[in-house]
């Protein structure tokens, strides 16, 4: 009898009703990659600053079409990025995709479940090596210590796409929250954290426009996220809350030989209590990058990027940080500017090797964010290199 449980009957019915074989409705893809990385004079990858193999990204995804309006999609990943984010297996996304309107010129859908962040240029596939311009993304916006929160939400996403005489339009809205792991709490607050940091609510909106039949794309996105911290017994932190608000603009030009991309943002971070009762901080940071890629041959791509970030637009050199800490925290914790060059070579079908070098001035985007690690990050200038081999199907 178990073989004919209502659930199984339902699935079988769906397959027959859709009038297609299972193989047409089910799509499976994945990727495997391993790299070698070293960050010198910073704790970005590892505390010991040695050459490391902590650059592994593996994923497997499936999309199953139940009928014309319903689809289920999910991806599991194993990631290891050293100090950059928590190591291990996780469900990257898993949601029900429900087409609310599907006409030749309009598509409106809702995705319910664990969703990716579809709002920034590279956010939806930031762990999929062959879809990224570089192994490590620009830290001004794709801040690794804040990564899990920016990765997506457990909640609802609404997406509308349409075309008109002006071009192609995409509108995305998401609401929900994400789970903050212990390591990520440490990345944000510091190793001594024993309380609980919770993501209360996250709302994001974005609009993309590609002028009619052009190679340009313009985008804007806004983010509003609230966090709450509950103090534990013997904690060095206090009950408090944090709000992050971002406004971002992006542009993309895709030519035959050249591609140019840029994203800029303003990020307001408001902190109440948390560090000590009565503590208040309200600072607006600014950052962004300009990136060019040159397609030397169909298989070889060269990349150059400049990424800038200032934690407080009123204190770009970090002199207030130095002053308020009585000289304990150097001013270079107030900014982080980064120049990157890289190359990738697609040497066989779906197999690519990618390499890059970063030269960095400042440590503002290094973990922990709220209580700087002055011992590991005692250099104003630091550098990083990485090589990664990747395969996908």
């Amino acid at each position, binding site marked *: 009898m178990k073989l004919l449980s209502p659930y199984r009957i339902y699935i079988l019915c769906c397959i027959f009703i859709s009038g297609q074989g299972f193989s047409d409705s089910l*799509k499976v*893809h994945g*990727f495997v990659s391993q790299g070698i990385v070293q960050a010198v004079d910073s704790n970005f990858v590892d505390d010991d600053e040695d050459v490391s193999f902590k650059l592994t990204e593996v*994923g497997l*995804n499936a*999309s199953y*079409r139940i009928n*014309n309006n319903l689809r289920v*999609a*999910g*991806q599991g990943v194993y990631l290891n990025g050293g100090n950059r984010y928590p190591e291990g297996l996780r469900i990257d*996304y898993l*949601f029900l*995709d429900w087409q609310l309107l*599907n*006409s*030749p*010129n309009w*598509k409106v859908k809702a*995705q319910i479940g664990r*969703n*990716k962040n*579809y709002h920034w240029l590279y956010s*939806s*596939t930031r762990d*999929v090596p*062959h*879809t990224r311009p570089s192994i490590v993304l620009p830290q001004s916006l794709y801040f690794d210590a804040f990564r899990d929160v920016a990765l997506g939400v457990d909640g609802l996403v609404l*997406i509308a*796409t349409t*075309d008109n005489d002006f071009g*192609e339009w995409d509108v995305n809205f998401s609401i929900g929250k994400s789970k903050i792991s212990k390591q990520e709490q440490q990345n944000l607050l510091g190793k001594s954290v024993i309380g609980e940091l919770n993501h209360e609510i996250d709302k994001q909106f974005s609009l993309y426009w590609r002028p*009619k*039949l052009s*190679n340009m794309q313009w985008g804007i996105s806004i983010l509003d996220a609230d966090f709450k911290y509950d103090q534990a017994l013997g904690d060095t932190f206090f009950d408090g809350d944090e709000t992050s608000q971002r406004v971002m603009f992006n542009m993309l*030009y*895709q*030519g*035959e*030989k*050249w591609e*140019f991309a*840029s994203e800029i943002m303003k990020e307001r971070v408001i902190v109440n209590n948390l560090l000590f009762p009565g503590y208040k901080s309200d600072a607006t940071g*600014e950052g962004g990058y*300009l990136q*060019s890629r040159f*397609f030397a041959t*169909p298989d070889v791509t060269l990349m150059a990027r*400049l990424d*800038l970030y*200032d934690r407080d637009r009123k204190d*770009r*050199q970090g002199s207030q940080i130095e002053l308020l800490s009585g000289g304990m925290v150097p001013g270079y914790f107030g900014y982080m500017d980064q120049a990157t060059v890289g190359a990738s070579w697609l040497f066989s079908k779906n197999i690519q090797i990618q390499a890059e070098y970063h030269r960095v001035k400042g440590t503002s985007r290094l973990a922990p964010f709220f209580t700087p690690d002055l011992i590991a990050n005692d250099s104003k200038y630091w550098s990083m290199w990485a090589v990664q081999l990747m395969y996908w199907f």
Partner: protein
Amino acid sequence: MLQMKYFIIFCVFWICIFAGIRSEAAQSQFQKVKVIVNTSVPASTVSEQQIRRIFSMRQTVWANNQSITVFVLDKKHQVHQAFSTNTLGMFPYQLERVWNKLVYSGLGEEPIKVNSEQEMLDRISRNPGSIGYINSNTEYENVKVLKVIKE
């Protein structure tokens, strides 16, 4: 200090863009292609904007609500390159980028890849609502040619 930096970078950026656009002018000649559909497809013409929309997987139904199945050749196939560049006005890497985003973020599905023009013809003739392309010189039967209207 930083604002000055932003300004300089912005200028360099736009100079590069215009240099890039100029280099686009020298495009190599590609062969001609035909867009083909299953005989069940009601349309006989399609606009350039709409064909882009279909192959970017943004449009997934025909006007009569019939589902669209998209077939494509390998990105290195000459016919695919000609179709992408001349018919869609998109470089093959742009299409691949769009499909990668769909597949690896869960947003949607990519087109079905076929190995040869013969397989393309074969599958389009058998699948209602399907669309693909072949070289203009390739002989065909049991499929319909869709005229692309340039805007």
